[in-house]
């Protein structure tokens, strides 16, 4: 088999505390050496001046297949992922049918294998039909490949069901990921409740809708010694709640989406439906709190909540437009702003998109240890490019960054040693 040498790159592998110029050697789909090697390469990639790190993991993605393939499917989502340097994704269960049966999970994994561009790990539903009433067969779902549980988009409102979900999933070592939103407080809301919603005359979703459910869930997590993960944390109050729960030693973790640390509610002024998602873009104070949570380690993971929608679902006015934006192709450049702003070291940033989610989910990914599957991303931190939604790989064109200059660009993505994305082209 051929030996690949990725030369002269700045190798960052947080799991192994590597942060230096090293060559990376890949053979038979695996990392065979870091640094010097005793054989000559058959093939080389010059990574001079670039960062070489483990392929990114995005633990919060909506692939829409099965059921809404006009928005995205496993193939288009996989292509978008590798174009963004992402080699492992966790897909949320709000498909049609939902991922509440092992068969659906197996089907998704099988389809992703056929596509062969990136790993797809399903997140199983917590409750049947995402109805918040009866638990799914969680053990069976994990055997089919599910790596965590969530009713994403449909918050588990019933405290009794949530308690049982936390207890039962923890019995097998898995966490419950909650989209925390008290719907009685957010009903009818489209954007953050505050000065912007007042000016636009659009119903808002108050921050307390997120905070109050997280507060309750943390208490239930303490009661059950369970594992609780807050999806797409967006408010200052929620960051404080998670920080204090972790200080008490509870198994509470969270992720932040790039849009929540890069943008504020001001983006929706002018009724911009491409800046509408749930939880919504919040205030500058909330954005700063999310950044502080990333800095101090309260927020261990960056995940995009990639939510592709068809244009028709967005161009019907802010109040009725679908929630969600795409994220796979903008995750890296937007997140690099945290390094440029001095919030995180490059290694800490990469850990939040590789080794940290791998550890939380038990994924065999997110590192370049010798012997590991060679999922690798090579990127140029300084390359500037203008995002054109029409040139995005995802079927979803719903991004608030259309026409904006991005800094940082993926040059190569390798999946199990195979180059699947190089210089702007996907190699199927």
């Amino acid at each position, binding site marked *: 088999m051929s030996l690949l040498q990725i030369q002269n790159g700045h190798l960052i592998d947080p799991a192994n505390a590597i942060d230096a110029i090293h060559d990376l050697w890949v053979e038979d789909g695996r990392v065979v050496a870091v640094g010097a090697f005793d054989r000559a390469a058959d093939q080389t990639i010059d990574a001079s001046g670039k960062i070489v790190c483990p392929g990114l993991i995005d633990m919060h993605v909506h692939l829409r297949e099965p059921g809404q393939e006009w928005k995205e499917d496993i193939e288009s989502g996989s292509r978008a992922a590798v174009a963004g340097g992402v080699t492992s994704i966790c897909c949320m269960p709000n498909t049609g049918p939902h991922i509440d049966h092992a068969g659906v999970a197996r089907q998704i994994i099988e389809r992703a294998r056929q596509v062969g561009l990136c790993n797809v790990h399903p997140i199983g539903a917590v409750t049947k039909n995402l109805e918040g009433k009866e638990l799914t067969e969680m053990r069976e779902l994990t055997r089919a490949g599910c790596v965590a549980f969530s009713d994403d988009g449909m918050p588990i409102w019933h405290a009794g069901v949530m308690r049982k979900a936390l207890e039962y999933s923890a019995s097998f070592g898995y966490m419950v990921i909650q989209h925390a939103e008290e719907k009685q407080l957010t009903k009818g809301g489209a954007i953050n*409740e*505050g*000065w912007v*919603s*007042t*000016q*636009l*005359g*659009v*119903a*808002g979703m*108050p921050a307390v809708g997120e905070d109050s459910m997280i507060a309750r869930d943390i208490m239930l997590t303490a009661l059950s010694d369970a594992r609780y993960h807050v999806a797409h944390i967006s408010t200052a109050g929620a960051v404080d709640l998670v920080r204090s729960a972790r200080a008490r030693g509870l198994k509470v973790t969270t992720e932040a989406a790039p849009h929540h640390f890069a943008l504020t509610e001001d983006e929706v002024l*002018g*009724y911009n439906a491409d800046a509408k998602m749930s939880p919504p873009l919040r205030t500058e104070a909330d954005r700063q709190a999310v950044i502080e949570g990333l800095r101090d380690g309260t927020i261990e993971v960056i995940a995009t909540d990639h939510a592709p929608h068809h244009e*028709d679902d967005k*161009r*019907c*006015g*802010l*109040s*009725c*437009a679908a929630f969600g934006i795409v994220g796979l192709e903008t995750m890296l450049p937007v997140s690099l702003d945290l390094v440029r702003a001095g919030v995180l070291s490059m290694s800490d940033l990469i850990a939040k998109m590789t080794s940290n989610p791998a550890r939380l989910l038990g994924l065999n990914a997110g590192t370049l240890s010798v012997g590991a599957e060679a999922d690798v991303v090579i990127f140029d931190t300084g390359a500037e490019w203008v995002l054109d939604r029409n040139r995005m790989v995802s079927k979803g064109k719903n991004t608030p960054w259309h026409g904006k200059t991005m800094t940082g660009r993926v040059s190569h993505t390798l999946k199990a040693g195979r180059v699947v994305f190089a210089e702007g082209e996907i190699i199927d």
Partner: protein
Amino acid sequence: MRPLKHLFGIADVDREQIEYLVNLGHSFIDVNRRAIKKAPTLRGKTVINLFFENSTRTRTSFEIAGKRLSADVINISASTSATSKGESLLDTGMTLAAMQPHVLVIRHSLAGTCQLLADYLPDTALVNAGDGAHEHPTQVLTDLLTMKQSWGSPEGKVITIVGDISHSRVARSHLLAAKKLGYTVRLVAPKTLLPSQVERYGCEVYHDFDAAIPGSDALYMLRIQTERLTDNCAFPSVREYHEAYGLNGKRLRAAGSDCMVMHPGPMNRGVEIATDVADSVQSHILSQVEHGVAVRMAVLTALCGGAGEEE
């Protein structure tokens, strides 16, 4: 003056444009009182009134305004539930625009209706006749004309708006106009009917109606929607609402004999306003209706090329 291409809201017009429209409206009052109520100003122009929400006065007001200026006026009433038919709104708008009207007057429950349509209807002048809880600019121009008749200028005056501020597009347009024209808005409502951070408009906020009355130059009563009772527990009963926030004779006496009583209509007599107050000499409610036609004539004239100007 900056030419007017659309009228989305008070947010998008400056003081000069507002005063121009109010003054032009003022000049149309006399036309409306003549025996022959017709001017040739908009001959050959097509105005479509596209109303997705029930409205008698605003739609009729626009219709009369267009007809008295000799425009061809077409009325379309389309029913739609809240915000669910947004896509058909866009299709309806594009379809009508393809018929080459000069002006499309739109009322819809969706905040930002004009902003949504404008991207797809580049050649049609759009007038916002009320979009959700966002803006209702022609109502506020109407009110400004009514105030002009009594006061000359609203500058330095205190207008006290009472009722469901949360859902009121009229209140929002007044809050924006107040800043541009130098009058003060006092808002009176329980916290359940006030939108988040509304004080950032620079207004005064009261929960006690009686405390807000002294110093008010106008008491502006908003229609209370009784659905709010069941929808979101905004207030417990009509009876309690009328006690706390209704304008009755006693409160009017406290306000003094110079205080104007206003209401954008339609009124709920016995709820936000007592019948004797609505029919009192201090009530300007029917003047508002009359001025509404004049102001809408001004808006249509300005959008179709301005008085005496060629396109």
